[in-house]
């Protein structure tokens, strides 16, 4: 009975994501006729449509909306998946990818690129920034991991403390750099930290998607092991799992996913924390379902936020990370309050 109830979520969420995918292509500051959207997509396969203003429309669909839609789905799914993993690994519903310092490190890397390399010109910085963010994120996680590992054992409590410490170091670095930044750099910095999926180009996606998809696929294979891990490391060990190795792999994958996501879309908080939490309320704590469903829900949620971000201040655009936190946080608080009421 319970299993069939969960099974319904898969088609439901898949359908939701797919409808949002279509909506994301169809909605924006510019209203485009559904027929034109369809013919533009056909243009992807070499059939140029004969609609008169097709070039603008086709351009918008193929070069603007499609890349941002794909980015939103990839990043949303990845961040949600890494959230599930972190919460399972730390056995704490409050855990999220920021805990191991990866976001702070990525921010520091991005800020370094914006402030220190601005002399090389805006175009080059737009290429160096993702590299900076990625390097920063990976480096921070590596440091945290080294701090928390003694005699080949990674201590979860130390991992948390190390994450906080490295995070503090990174924020101090960000603070110092912003102090010396000029107005334009400060503005770039602020906007970057609010996240956006609209700046990605096909090249970014081409580079990022294999990493994200493969990482997610590997995480997917660990979904039952995550169940064991969330019962406690000793339990997992007793069950015959190589806890040391699993921890290492999961951490590396999370760092990889978050670093790549941050590098193409800036800081988008909230998804990694809240999507797994929401899904746990809906489908329970079994990672076999929690992980894949969280990926679908993460993709859907970021798409919704991105669609909203296009309309609020059109023709300008709000950063999607901002929208995410603005609509997501109150919703989350509401859910928590309801949950409390239901349990009392």
């Amino acid at each position, binding site marked *: 009975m319970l299993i069939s109830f969960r099974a319904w979520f898969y088609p439901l969420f898949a359908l939701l994501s797919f409808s949002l995918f279509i909506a994301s292509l169809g909605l*924006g*500051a*510019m209203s485009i*006729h559904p*027929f034109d959207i369809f013919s533009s997509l056909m243009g992807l396969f070499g059939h140029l449509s004969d*609609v*008169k*203003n097709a*070039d*603008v429309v086709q*351009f*918008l669909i193929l*070069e*603007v*909306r499609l890349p941002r839609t794909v980015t939103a789905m990839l990043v949303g799914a990845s961040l949600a998946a890494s959230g599930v993993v972190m919460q399972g690994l730390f056995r704490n519903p409050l855990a999220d990818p920021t805990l191991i310092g990866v976001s702070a490190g990525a921010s520091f890397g991005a800020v370094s690129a914006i402030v220190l390399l601005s002399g090389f010109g*805006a*175009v080059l*910085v*737009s290429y160096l920034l993702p590299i900076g963010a990625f390097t920063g994120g990976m480096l921070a996680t590596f440091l945290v991991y080294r701090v928390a590992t003694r005699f080949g054992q990674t201590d979860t409590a130390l991992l948390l403390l190390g994450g906080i410490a490295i995070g503090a170091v990174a924020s101090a670095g960000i603070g110092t750099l912003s*102090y*010396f*930044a*000029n*107005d*334009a750099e400060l*503005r*770039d910095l602020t*906007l970057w930290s609010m996240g956006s999926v*609209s*700046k990605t*180009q096909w090249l970014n996606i081409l580079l990022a998607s294999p990493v994200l998809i493969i990482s997610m696929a590997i995480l997917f294979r660990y979904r039952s092991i995550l169940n064991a891990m969330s019962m406690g490391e000793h339990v997992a060990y007793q069950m015959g799992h190589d806890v040391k190795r699993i921890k290492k792999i999961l951490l590396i994958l999370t760092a990889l996913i978050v670093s790549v996501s941050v590098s193409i879309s800036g800081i988008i908080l909230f998804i990694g924390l809240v999507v797994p939490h929401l899904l746990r309320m809906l489908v329970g704590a079994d990672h076999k379902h929690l992980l894949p469903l969280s990926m679908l829900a993460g993709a859907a949620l970021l798409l919704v936020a991105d669609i909203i971000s*296009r309309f609020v*201040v*059109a*023709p*300008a*655009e709000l950063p999607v990370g901002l929208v995410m936190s603005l609509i997501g946080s109150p919703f989350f608080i509401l859910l928590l309050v309801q949950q409390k009421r239901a349990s009392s």
Partner: protein
Amino acid sequence: MIKIFALFTALLVGSVSSASERLVSIDGSLTEVVYALGAQKSLVARDDTSVHPKAVFRLPSVGYMRALSTEGVLSVKPTKVLLTDAAGPPNVINQLQLSNVEIVTIKSESSLTGVRSKIEQVGKALNKQEDTEKFLNDFDAKAKIFLDKRKTIGKAVEGKRALLFLGMQSNQLNAAGVRTKAQSVLNELGLVNAATHQAYMPISTEAMISLNPDVIIIATHGPIDKAQITKQFSFTPAFKNNRIVFKDSAELLSFGPRLPESLTSILEQLTASTSHSSTLAHQ
């Protein structure tokens, strides 16, 4: 069927009216030039830095010039977009260039001659040769008034040590350093920047006093308590000689067509020989 018909009518109307220009101006100074040349009728959108004249607020904004969105700009169906190389992010500019909208990048230099060239470039982009010549005559006359003033009354402050502050919210002194537009303003006025740091940086009252400024210029946005702010500068030569000037930051630092008048009025205020106590008494 009706929908398709409506679509075709829309396309037809669209192609007929495409003869008229739909202009988006992305930079406050460029927008001012568009108005100065009388081309505001074709303006369909602005950016967040376009705040003058007041009428421009009726137009939708496509956002901050360094954070444009491709679709946002295209959604106002522009035929021409004016911007400077400060506009970004780079890939959005790239995408806009790939679309069939004409993107005109105006070379923007922070100087009087730079502003003149800006007007010329915008005039050329808008095909407004006559209006441009007319306005340039006016501009040149105003620039000449300023340059003459610099040679006469301006001699009194030539080469003096100056500080230019930005904003002044909650009494925070945000001093303009070298390689800023503010530095260019000081250059035009024949003043020497007492600050040596880069960009805009908060400095303490103590540091400000130790820099010993003969002249203080405060670029403001929005209403401020002038007396309260002036008090902070009590121990500077600038205060003693009543050489503290307030100026709207959009007017002064955007390097738009109002620059010559703005500079002239600063020179006049700096060299007006009212004693400080009397100014404060007025307030």
